[in-house]
């Protein structure tokens, strides 16, 4: 299998702060890879660097062999990368239907994907006319992911999908991400280790702006020392 995304030793500054000091991540085509690490380690900044929101000053990012540096975020999105930011980044002034419709890259995208999306998130079909302001936190998170599924994205970057969700919704979210991963490669950031271990096949641990360890998730779950050392969780 080939790498769909290759992040090679990137350094990113936000203002004068050196946030990423050498992060390398390989995402295999068709896989789910998770970025793990403590708060403030640089996981979200890595996703934002891929999207061109915080462009790296050194290193290289390749998507399907194409370099992403120097491209604007709208160009990167148009190449087939969907980003689901944390904090349920929907458009609250638009209805559920409008939030989905706005994500169309080609005419008819939504019509083609409707069945798949509403199959993953049946609640959204019921709430289709409701404005974003009236949705609960979980519904907003589902809408944010559903929106990234409307166009034909090759890669989905999902930041903290389980953040602030009730346990029953987390299970629903895990099932949804597993189903969508059948067609799309996923790179996600997840603080909840249990969720991460259920979802991902591969992991990359980021510590103080550096990628320090990577491998198969199946091996990590049995490696208590690494979990304690880098994630502080059992």
């Amino acid at each position, binding site marked *: 299998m080939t790498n769909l995304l290759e992040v090679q030793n990137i350094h990113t500054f936000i203002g004068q702060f050196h946030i990423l000091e050498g992060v390398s991540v390989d995402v295999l085509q068709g896989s789910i890879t998770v970025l793990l690490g403590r708060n403030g380690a640089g996981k979200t900044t890595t996703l934002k660097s891929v*999207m061109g*929101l915080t462009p790296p000053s050194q290193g290289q990012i390749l998507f399907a062999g194409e370099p992403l540096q120097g491209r*604007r*975020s*709208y160009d990167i*999105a*148009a190449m087939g990368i969907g*980003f689901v*930011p944390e904090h349920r*980044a929907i*458009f*609250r*002034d*638009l209805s559920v239907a*409008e939030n989905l*419709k*706005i*994500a*169309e*890259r080609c005419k008819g995208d939504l019509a083609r994907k409707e069945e798949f999306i509403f199959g993953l998130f049946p609640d959204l079909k019921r709430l289709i006319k409701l404005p974003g302001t009236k949705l609960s936190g979980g519904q907003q998170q589902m809408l944010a992911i559903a*929106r990234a599924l409307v*166009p034909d994205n090759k890669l989905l970057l999902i930041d903290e999908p389980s953040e602030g969700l009730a346990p029953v919704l987390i299970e629903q979210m895990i099932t949804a991400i597993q189903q969508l991963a059948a067609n799309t490669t996923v790179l996600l950031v997840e603080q909840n280790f249990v969720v991460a271990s259920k979802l991902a096949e591969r992991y990359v641990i980021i510590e103080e702006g550096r990628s320090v360890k990577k491998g198969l998730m199946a091996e990590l779950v049995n490696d208590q020392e690494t979990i304690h050392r880098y994630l502080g969780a059992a």
Partner: protein
Amino acid sequence: MQSTIPPTETGREALRLFKENRGPLAMLLALILFPFFVALLDGQGPTAVLNNEIGNARFLQGLLIEIFILAIYALSYDLILGITGLLSFGHAMFFAVGAYLTGIAFKSFGWGVGPTLAAVIVAGIVQALLFGLVLPRVKGITFALVTLGFASVFEIIVKSNEMVAYTGADVGLQGVVVPAAWLNTSNERFRLYLIVLFFTFFVYLVYRRFVDSPTGRVCIATRENEGRAQMLGYNTFYFKLTALILSSITAAMAGFFHTVHQPIVSPAVAGLGWTVAALLMILMGGIGTLSGALVGAAIFRLLQFYLERWFGGNATFLIGLVYVLLVMFVPYGVVGTWQARRLDIQRGRERLLRLLHLRP
């Protein structure tokens, strides 16, 4: 008895359009009939309106034309600020370019209505492109200040003594004569009233369609969070520019009608105060609601007119007081607050009807 004839596709579409716009259509019809109603109350016949006879009907048509022009101007500001989220302090320039260009074209160049209108539209596009030059580079308050800079330069030019032959400098452009008799506000008041009314209605419908279109939805998304809109693959610059061009042409058209109706162009329409007037109108009506711009324009002009009539020199203070009270107690504007509280108002009305035993 229900009709057994199935409606055709065209018929269904017309019916849907009618149902969607029945409010504005009813308002349009009421405003067409309004001068006749006033004439009847005044003891004049309906022909008084058609014959342009002196009276309250003619006077109120003049006042309403001013309100319609303000409404077109306020709508244009609502599109860029309320819908797209672009704070411009130079919006007065969009209006003033249309007003001055019309005056200069009629008075100094002797142009007819057609070429003048074409020039106003072209000028509207050009000035929007000028603002668009800075769009990718500056955002938020910086954009507001840069646009204020553009408008200030324009104001200095129209007030400069070098331009006195064209703009009238500090005194303003005076004695403009509209070259078309059918557009003359003194002799053809009802015709001008209808033209400006229909144009206002047209602009309102076009804007509503724009807001409901895919482009309009991206404008709303840009207002809410530009970064998120870009992450979906939209180069928001083009959407902001589209809104600016549409807004600029509309404001310039408002300026055109302003000069046609009041053949004096004061340099005040090029100043910051005129931009603030647009802001006040949409704040009072409800920012981002479009219909709020129409309501705000009516409140703005009627307050100004009646308070000045009743209190003379003290009116300015009272107008200011009313603005402060409106912002304090109706913070989302008349339409905005109504939309936000529609459910509460509906529940309150039902409770009242139950109390009065008019509903079980």
